[in-house]
């Protein structure tokens, strides 16, 4: 719907400086756009193209390869239910079916109130804790159908569900688009020596000195 805000443009420029070539920042920047809007719009992609110096079509080319980027609005909470082999063995498909029944939507759909989108996803790396889900990429492990209902009820009430694991205890579950709640910080001074590869022609100084010694 819109281009990046001024604050996010500043952040985007910070991120671009960390890479020897600007296009490398594209995936983090697409996440930033998704963080701002909850999805990635055409305008956002065009804006990112301007920022890293590629066409809007190239941005779209990258964006459409990756499943996490949504090209249309989705729910405030993305509920990803794993049905891959380890979860399938312990009730992942039944949990997905329960979620579909409870929320009244099929996998891929969004509830009418715009709160929940559910997806039938591939392995999310919590196989010993099957069946598992992620809500905006926060884990819920070994869930019963009642646990699932509790999570949905807590989110509807605006609370952090007890069954979801956050980096620090009791942290809020941010809206869809925000991943980690903290960012790596690199100052302009710290990034001054990150340059395009063609600007570097010599071995780093500590290797050069050590070979002289030996």
């Amino acid at each position, binding site marked *: 719907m819109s281009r990046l805000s001024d604050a996010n443009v500043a952040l985007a420029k910070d991120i671009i400086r960390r890479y020897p070539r600007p*296009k490398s920042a594209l*995936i983090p920047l697409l996440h930033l756009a998704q963080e701002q809007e909850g999805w990635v719009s055409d305008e956002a992609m065009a804006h990112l193209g301007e920022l890293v110096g590629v066409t809007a079509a190239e941005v779209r080319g990258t964006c459409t390869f*990756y499943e996490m980027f949504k090209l249309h609005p989705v729910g405030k909470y993305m509920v990803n239910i794993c049905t891959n082999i380890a979860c399938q063995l312990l009730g992942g498909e039944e949990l997905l079916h329960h979620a579909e029944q409870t929320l009244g939507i099929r996998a891929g759909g969004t509830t009418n109130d715009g709160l929940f989108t559910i997806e039938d996803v*591939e392995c999310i*790396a919590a196989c*010993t804790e099957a069946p598992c889900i992620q809500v905006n990429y926060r884990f819920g492990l070994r869930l019963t159908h009642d646990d699932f209902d509790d999570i949905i009820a807590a989110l509807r009430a605006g609370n952090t569900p007890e069954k979801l694991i956050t980096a620090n205890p009791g942290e809020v579950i941010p809206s869809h688009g925000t991943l980690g709640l903290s960012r790596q910080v*690199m100052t302009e001074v710290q990034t001054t020596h990150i340059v395009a590869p063609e600007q570097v022609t010599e071995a780093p100084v*500590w290797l050069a000195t050590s070979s002289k010694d030996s």
Partner: protein
Amino acid sequence: MATGQYVPHAPGYVDSPGEKIVTSRFVYDDSYTLERYEATGGYEGFKAALQKAPDDVHSITRDATLLGRGGAGFPAGIKWGFCPDDVWPRYLVVNGDESEPGTYKDRLLMELDPHQLIEGCLIACYAIGLTQCFLYVRGEMAVAQQRIADALNEAYAKGYIGQNVLGTDFSVDIVLHWGAGAYIVGEETALIESLEGNRGMPRLKPPFFPAAVGLYGQPTIVNNVETLSNLPWLMNNGADKYKEFGSETSPGTRMFAVSGQVKRPGVYEVEQGVTTYEDLIYGNDYCQGMLDGRELKMFVPGGGSAPWLFPEHVKLPLEARPVGAAGTMLGSGAIVIMDDTTDAVKACLRIVRFFARESCGKCAPCREGTSWEEKILQRILDGHGRPGDLDLLLDIGDNISPGPYPVAGFEAEGLEPVPFPPRQTTICPLGPSSVAPITSALRRFRHEFEAKIAAANETSVEVIA
């Protein structure tokens, strides 16, 4: 320190007896903080490395035979040596895009001990002259990203990363990068494409491997999270001590995620080559046997890409060579246990569906073949199987991976086993991986497929013209 216990603040990890090289801090509920890390010997390995010449640090890694933990099991020290002598700069890319079905060890290492990984990166960069490191974390792992971001900020503030680290002439930058949901990006050349801001499609290799021509065409070392996490311990204790654990060809420990129908599934760090599948599945310190007293039917020995193993194989040691000789692979250390209530067709379909969904679309045999495989298996499962379907499945598989496919269980039929890896008509191993569950299931449980097809054809309604 309790052993054999579930660790509540590290859901999934189960502490077990024996030396812990990479999971030693998981028993602390503040394992991810710099405070805990420094109080338990953190950054000492890096400081020890800085006292040595870079070549010596490289030699220790080579001498320890530190095998890559991502799946292929290539020795890290040898890989490091493949960088051409006079091409600069060189980069390090950390592969934290873990998404092989059944696998999770890197996520725990990133969430629970991010400083250990950072220290490993620093040691690798110092040893082979890498000036910038990109820590590529899987997009879906929000907690890992947050913990690593915090850890990097702390490490920069403490002077472990940056210019003239700890007063030496060593300078390095580590940048947190994260993906957006694509399994194939775990393949090292696809990872590099993705890091360049492109669609994550693998590059053709040989001739150019990333160590020679990688990120931006520069020499690039791509190492797995668990591989790098071994380095701090290795620098503190030396290669000889490292080789006291594990077997001769696979020294050290490995993390195994054992999931599926067992009593106590979990991620265990065990010695390679010494422990067997049987120990893990039935041992009291490990999974404690099958769920509800049922019988083992088959198991995935090393991630969704690995051909299945069967009950007669449980005595195989957890070591790359014997498992490879048996016709499968230790892969990413993901073991999925299936009991006798499991429908072989359904399990096979679910793994094939994964590869069909995750095929990047670059090579036709995989792009077309994996979705045909999925459709055929789906119709067999749904009761619409056709008489020629099993031959068709094998034919499609042969198109992706020509010739005999490695499948354990040949011995029982008096045949020579076909060792891993399979041949491929594709750039990367994703397509051939989709053939593994099909050939495994068909060799052992063909009757289950045939019964479903026969039932489908008995109940067909005659069409009245």
